[in-house]
């Protein structure tokens, strides 16, 4: 059990004790270490100005991934190698990513530039695939350049991809040191706050039972925002990051089982071919920086009425595994939410695993998201529609909407209406009207009630057109 944080910063070991472990990484860099190259703009993971790379042990050495360090706490980067914009160059020589940004006029005011440099470095780390450059940069906002020169820089890099970060910035022995550190349990106390990161589930369950007020920290993409924006900071934190049994994703013939520690990034890599529709939603779920740390379990535990993953989980009727003092219980996600961010989860319970039953190959499954901006935006409305046909007749339908009530909801009456109807446009027009009657959305900053009602109605017709196009293609 370690009582302090150890990590590497641009190749050198850092030891952080006490209250500083509860700072954000951005605060630690700027205010404690006097390294102002990393900028903080939105302080909520929506602009990427604070992007740094974090290297964690993986199969072949450390694997580096971009994160938003303004919503990441110092204790979360224990046993990692953090690379900041100051750590990329070698002497006076710019890193190829930096050089490409200079060559292609990728900076104007320069304030977002360190973030873009690090996001590009992350993209380069993943193979410099030209077709992925836009998706790789969705987490970074620039107000000056209109992005084209930055995409030019990506194109230049794609022509001669640089060596990996590890080869450029990792001193010998660092990787082994990080691996060793990652085996330690952590118990850190400072200024009335505490963090416990055990290595077994049993310890975690026992701790949660003894400290029912403890808040579980996973990616902290919600906790970081709450702290920065509303000054809300839990005094007791429980991290499951070191509990190996909660890592990983298992794929069987008809079910995908996702551990509580699995990030959206890992899910994206693993389940792509099994749930292709999920990919675009995962991409739109958040930026690479967010997906690298945010977990599906966290999204479920937070239970936002506009959570991007929940409509899908509901139409698939996902199963949650929940550990408590009495052992593991399993329950379906439908009915799990009882009110705004209220759920059937006791204070001494922990979500440990999510089991996604896979739909049969002949089923239709589509996900929709409406947001003011396509990428890196919170949904105004989201939908998952799953349907099984028997010839031209709809055998069964499952529909879940987000952004229309205090929780993500299923639409049982519309589902009942659809069952037995002919798969034709008129059916979906009528179903849309039915759906409109079944929900009562509110007006807020992301959209009016009228807009949401119209989306509730239209998305069913859109589904019909999308499926018809597929069926026509198949027929050809």
């Amino acid at each position, binding site marked *: 059990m370690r009582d302090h944080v150890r990590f590497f910063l641009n190749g050198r070991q850092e030891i952080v004790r006490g209250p500083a472990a509860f700072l954000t990484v951005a605060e630690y860099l700027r205010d404690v270490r006097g390294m102002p190259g990393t900028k903080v703009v939105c302080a909520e993971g929506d602009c990427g100005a604070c992007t740094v790379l974090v290297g964690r042990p993986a199969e072949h050495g450390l694997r580096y991934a971009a994160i938003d360090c303004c919503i990441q706490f110092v204790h979360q980067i224990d046993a990692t190698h953090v690379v900041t914009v100051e750590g990329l160059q070698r002497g006076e020589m*710019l890193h190829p990513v930096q050089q490409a940004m200079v060559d292609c006029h990728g900076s104007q005011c320069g304030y977002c530039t360190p973030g873009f440099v690090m996001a590009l470095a992350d993209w380069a780390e993943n193979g410099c695939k030209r077709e992925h450059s*836009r998706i790789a940069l*969705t987490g970074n906002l620039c107000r000056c350049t209109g*992005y084209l020169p930055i995409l030019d820089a990506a194109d230049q890099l794609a022509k001669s991809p640089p060596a990996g970060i590890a080869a450029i910035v990792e001193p010998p022995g660092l990787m082994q040191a990080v691996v060793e550190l990652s085996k330690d349990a952590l118990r850190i106390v400072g200024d009335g706050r505490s963090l416990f990161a055990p290595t077994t589930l049993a310890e975690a369950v026992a701790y949660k039972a003894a400290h029912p007020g403890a808040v579980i920290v996973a990616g902290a993409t919600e906790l970081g925002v709450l702290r920065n924006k509303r000054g809300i900071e839990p005094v007791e934190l429980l991290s499951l990051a070191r509990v190996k049994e909660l890592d990983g994703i298992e794929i069987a013939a008809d079910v995908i089982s996702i551990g509580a520690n699995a990030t959206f990034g890992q899910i994206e890599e693993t389940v792509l071919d099994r749930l292709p529709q999920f990919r675009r939603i995962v991409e739109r779920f958040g930026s690479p920086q967010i997906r690298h740390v945010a977990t599906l379990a966290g999204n479920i535990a937070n239970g936002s009425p506009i959570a991007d993953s929940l409509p899908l989980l509901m139409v698939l009727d996902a199963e949650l595994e929940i550990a408590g003092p009495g052992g593991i219980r399993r329950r379906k996600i439908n009915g799990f939410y009882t009110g705004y961010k209220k759920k059937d989860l006791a204070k001494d319970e922990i979500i440990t695993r999510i089991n996604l039953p896979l739909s049969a190959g002949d089923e239709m499954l589509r996900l929709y998201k409406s947001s003011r901006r396509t990428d890196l935006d919170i949904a105004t409305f989201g939908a998952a529609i799953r349907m099984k046909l028997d010839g031209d007749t709809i055998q069964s339908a499952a529909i879940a909407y987000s952004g229309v009530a205090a929780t993500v909801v299923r639409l049982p009456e519309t589902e009942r209406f659809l069952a037995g109807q002919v798969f034709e446009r008129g059916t979906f027009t009528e179903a849309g009207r039915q759906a409109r009657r079944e929900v009562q959305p509110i007006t807020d900053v992301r959209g009016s009630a009228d807009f949401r*009602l119209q989306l509730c109605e239209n998305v069913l017709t859109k589904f019909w057109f999308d499926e018809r196009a597929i069926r026509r293609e198949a027929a050809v």
Partner: protein
Amino acid sequence: MSAIGQSTPHESASEHVRGSAAYLDDLPPIRGELCVDFVGSSVAHGVIQSIDVDAARKAPGIVAVFTASDVPENMFGPSVHDEEVLAQQVVPFLGYPVLLIAGESKAAVQQAKKLVRVEVDAQPAILTIDDAVAAGQFIGPERVIRSGDVDAALAQAPHRLNGEFSIGGQEHFYLEAQAALAVPHEAGQMVVHSSTQNPTEIQILVARVLKRSMAQISCMCRRMGGGFGGKETQAAWPAVFAALVAARTGRPARCVFGHEQDFQTTGKRHEYRVHYEFGFDDVGRLSAYRARFYSNGGFSADLSLAVMERTLLHAENAYHIPNVEFRGRVCRTNLPSNTAFRGFGGPQAVAAMENVIEEVAAHLGIDSALVRRRNLYGNEQTTPYGQPVQNNTLPELFDRLVTTSSYQVRREEIQAFNEQSETHLRGIALTPVKFGISFTRKTMNQANALVHVQTDGTIQVSTGGTEMGQGLNTKLRQIVADEFAVAQDQVVILPTSTERNHNTSPTAASASTDLNGTAALNACRQIKAGMAALLADRKLRIAEWPGDASYSPISFVDAVRLAHEERVDLGARGFYATPGIEFDRETGRGTPFLYFTNGAAVTEVEIDRWLGDVTVRRVDLLMDLGRMINPAIDRGQVVGGFVQGMGWVTTEALVYGSGGQLLSDSATTYKIPNVTDVPADFRVNFLERHDNPVNLCGSKAMGEPPLLLAVSVWAAVKQALGSLSPGRIPQLSLPATNEEVLLRLSELAGEAAGDRHSTNGVAATMPQTARK
């Protein structure tokens, strides 16, 4: 090789990418430095009943708390002094600063803020243009520009239409928030480091508020993390806050706004409401256009009258309309004071004009590009305010772009697409721009520059121009390097300081390279004249300079050393005042601009009929920027300006709550364009071999004009909606968010089907457009 015309990277590019370019909050702390923050009003309009700061004063780490009575001169403001540094009695908008807290750390100040109690007796607030018009709440007089006889022309016109058009505001969203650091010095002197486009104004305002002389106050700015007009006047608050604390405590003080705080308390691009009527003939030739512009000015004057003036000066955009009447009024509301934003009233004017064009085309069922071409300014025609349109490249730009963008073919393809597609609608629009270059206030069209040639042959340059990413410093370096025929890296541009350059104008109105560059050139030429006289006397010449070939060549650095040895002045201060400009705002006539920057854009959009999402499929831009000093920087301004404008007309919606609170106050709720919003097919070109004989190096200003080209995105959306019900003119407010588009689509579909169940009126939070 001349440095002019080179695509030299931004002078700070290698610092930007290393993270070593320092912005205000990156400056290392100074010993004893205090952190300053303010507590704002909790209501949009009210009278302060009591302020209780006892607990905050006693909180750990708190050094001082100041209220209005602690401010030596509490009234200030950029144009007229109609703002209070801290609210004395009346709070005029939600979040208005009421008191300052200075402490040893950010954390201490944040804790102390929670202990402050401010009681305000809430009064009714005016938030919208409609409410202000109804209440007769205006700032300044009505301004008018007119020519011809609109009533007579309307009466004779074969077709006439009228309407109302709502145009939303825009948050600057500079990534670096407003910030300042004040450092007290002896004898009442103070240096204020500010992230400002206008160091001289910061100097003036700090001197005023502290009741000190201007000579005691200096302002410095190395760079800004974006400005876009938002730091032309509104950098003042953090600067005077920090200065006040520094003056009262004798300690350095830094004030850095939080981003939500910045969103909530600083002004934005003005929201507009336009009432218009126009007359035209069967082929779409406009004979009359009358527009009455109302802008939402916020609580104080700031630059709103000048912004409205530029609206009226751009209300006809690129079209010669024989009979026009443009009236503008600024509404006073209980919102932060709206301010300069790239385009400065021009974008709203152009949006209103292009809306009219789309309506002419929709009404007649003809191509809107045809309507535009028929009304485009020819050479030597005169604007409504009496300035001849000279050296006009609009027709050439227009015709070339029609060809290079394959406009006709694509328009036909789009028509065919719209006829068969049940899921998407497409639209295409070509809009031109003619943007007047010069400050409309004559005084501001001046600049000075200091050039110091060092004895090692390197050169220091400083001007009053500030660097906010636009590349001013890079171009200054090119201009000076070219003039002395030295390498660009021999020239260093110094941080902007009122100690080197005084009485300067803000870096604004696209004209900073024109003004400061010409002043720098003037200084260089003074130094060169001294050196040249000496060299001629010695029968010497600098190899790279023109001169008598029979003289012996020497290097620049040897010539410099010789000049110093022989007591020839190697420093100079240059000055420039834009010639030939004059405008009488009372009569609305004159020649306010040195020249016009022209361009045109073709944009194709696709609308998802069922979700309302708008995708920009392709953009073709063509601009005439004369002889470009730095083509890469100019291209950056054009692309960046266009994308920023695209945000304004599509996703950037400012949403207010009923109490006047800005709900879209962060990156999470206010959506500027993301990399995936940039059209996959984006072509940017420039007219070649063009010259601008009246300006520096034959170049043209380009900071603002490309933003106005983004009106083509909005116009294409309006046109796409029109394809749903030919002959009917679709209504569309700006911005065309997915919500606005979807609700308009349902309106059109509902009306077509005689079925109105799905049109329950538009959202309470969104501006409505109603047709008279």
